[in-house]
């Protein structure tokens, strides 16, 4: 139910705060997604799409850092209190 799929934002259509949308490529499939919740998204960004809405822009630097975690054994990820 909370499935969200990463895809590459191809282009953005319109600038309306509620209805701004863009085309997102998931492998070979392209679908429209509402971009109201990711005002910072730019074409070329990878966004996470759930129920027709992009809910996050994927942070490439954090992705690389998380993948490298074991290599820097004993390292720590972001932690709250």
């Amino acid at each position, binding site marked *: 139910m909370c499935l969200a799929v990463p895809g*590459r934002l191809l282009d953005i259509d319109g600038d309306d705060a509620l209805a701004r949308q863009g085309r997102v490529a998931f492998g070979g499939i392209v679908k429209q997604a509402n971009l109201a919740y990711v005002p910072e998204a730019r074409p070329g960004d990878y966004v996470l799409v*759930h129920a027709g*809405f992009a809910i996050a822009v994927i*942070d490439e630097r*954090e992705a690389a850092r998380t*993948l490298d975690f074991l290599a820097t054994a004993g390292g720590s990820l972001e932690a*709250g209190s």
Partner: protein
Amino acid sequence: MKHIDEWRSSTLACRYAQAVAQITTRPWSIMEICGGQTHSIVRYGIDRMLPSGVTLLHGPGCPVCVTPAGVIDAAIAMASRPGITFCSYGDMVRVPGERGSLLSASAHGADLRIVYSPLDALAIARKEPERNVVFLAIGFETTAPATAMAVLQAKREGIVNFFLLVSHVLVPPAIDAILSDPESRVQGFLAAGHVCTITGYAAYEVIARRHHVPIVVTGFEPVDLLQGVYLCIRQLESGSAMVENQYSRVVPREGNRGAQEAVAKVFVVQSQQWRGMGEIPASGLGLAPAYAQYDALARFGGRAIPPEHSGVCISAELLRGRKRPAQCPAFGTRCTPEHPLGATMVSSEGVCAAYYRYRRSEPTPADDKAGAAV
């Protein structure tokens, strides 16, 4: 596909499994919250890659599973009325209430449409102004912003034939309820990454402190899950109890502010019934007074009173992490995805459906172990 393939690397997954084994000195029970995580764990056999003393308990993280049967009955009654077009996510249409399912109502003439987004339901309302379009709004914090945006758009456009049957639920109060149960065996949590994408994880820091349990915000792919387990066990072994964020490529501590604001505008927090868990205070969302005109129950009547849980189905125990599917006498015999006795079998993310699909023919040592421990 970028941002998927690298997190399914079997080489990296095996390295994490080794790393977990190296730091584990005693048995631990960790609960994952989200049904999507449960599905991945069973599908990829993540639990079987862990040391024999480490048990993954499957939590109440499938909104389809925890939607009260009374809501489904109200949905069926509404869908069966003339003039109503009833829209639902596909997961929901086969879930049995007390009087059949939405799909069986459709077979008897109800105008049922399966949609991918609440915006699709709103588009139907726009296109067919002579129909009253009702959307069954279920889901956790991940999904509530989509519902909220459909309402905000409807209000702005003055659309008067769009309504919601709301049964949105919130995760932190359910975690709190599980940990407050004296019989709880849960020692650490993997929090649901996509819920936290919206909400952030400040609320989980309060729970970690209150119950002294480590909570790791975790993604959904095999490497994510193994890394989440590694971080959780590392805390358990050292006696630490804080929130760590494995899914930092997607989840910032503060979450998605725009989505939070939309939800806060359209909804109010209220007490909520969970199928299998009963009523949990402040664990659901209802429409705020300013948006009461979109309330389908108020407009079309009917009251969503959840019937008592009954029968042989043990989903109530499953959702609290007390039992495993193999301990249910009906699992795989009287209860199958074709003829589900409870919602943990009917939704593809339900724990019983996941075990039925991937583990039916082979009772696992993990199940036996968990069974002995309960």
